[in-house]
């Protein structure tokens, strides 16, 4: 009985560890995936800002929605030769990613 009890406890503990680890890994993977996608799209938006194009931020938000991000908050704090974007986006699995990215590039020639 004792051995059965011990085996049950060990199995439960192992199952708990495996479950928690699996969840942690899945979450880590999703987080990483979100960050890579966000980074890529943010860079496109930063280049778009530096090119002085209009609607960069709204296009950025559209692109985020297209890759299944919801509750997107993005703000743009760009100046003449500095493009800076802040974003808070939640993916389909309720993983929220907050990122800020900037690109400083002077495209004028004096």
């Amino acid at each position, binding site marked *: 009985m004792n051995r059965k009890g011990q085996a049950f406890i060990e199995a439960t503990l192992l199952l708990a560890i495996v479950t928690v680890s699996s969840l942690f890994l899945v979450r880590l993977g999703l987080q*990483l995936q979100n960050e*890579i996608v966000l980074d890529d799209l943010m860079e496109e938006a930063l*280049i778009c800002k530096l090119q002085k194009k209009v609607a960069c931020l709204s296009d950025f938000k559209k692109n985020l929605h297209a890759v299944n991000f919801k509750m997107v908050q993005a703000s743009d704090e760009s100046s003449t030769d500095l493009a800076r974007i802040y974003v808070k986006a939640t993916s389909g699995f309720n993983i929220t990613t907050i990122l800020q990215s900037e690109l400083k590039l002077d495209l004028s*020639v004096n």
Partner: protein
Amino acid sequence: MQSILLIGLFATLLFCFGFLSFVAQSKMQFRTNCLKKSVELQRQIIKSEKVLFALNPLSTALQTRYDSTQAELVTASAANNYPAVIKLEADLIKIRLDQLKLDTLQKSIINSSQIMVTTSLLQLTNNFHLDSQRLNKLWTGFLDIFFVIYFPNKTIIAVRAASSGVAPNYELTSQYKSSQKVAFVWQMKYWTRNETQKLLSSENQFELSCQALPNKNGDQWSIEI
């Protein structure tokens, strides 16, 4: 046994995530560096062209003086005014010498810019390669990673003489944007090494490019990315 398998699975997943992060970081590093360096190189080319184009008024003035002196010489010759002919001939030689000096200066600006561009392109390619190699040291035990970085077109100083003769005016060619484009392509190819292949066999390739183009609108220059 099952625990070992699970640990192996988790370790493989962590390895994959780590590598994914490394690829993203490498791409990001290249793109940012590439944009900055390409823009800087394009700016240097444009500055050289601005110096070259600033000599156009002098070129025009010399040619105008040469033409008018030559016309005066024809008139003086027809009138048999020999003292004037001698003076005008001396003037013509002096103007021609000035034109030759200007021509040498114009050509040296173009040639030195072209040498600077060619050298910079090679140097930047090498630097990008070294930067990429520095990042991949951690993975060389498990993966064979190759970076190929090259410039797809030879950037040339896109100017041409607007007229024939010595010390002409210079202008941009009609295709100056594509001819003078500074661009780089970054390719990363990886595959798992022999020992790692027993556990995980993977092979992939990524490609990325960046470019900086000149843009002239009236007297205003800018750089497009």
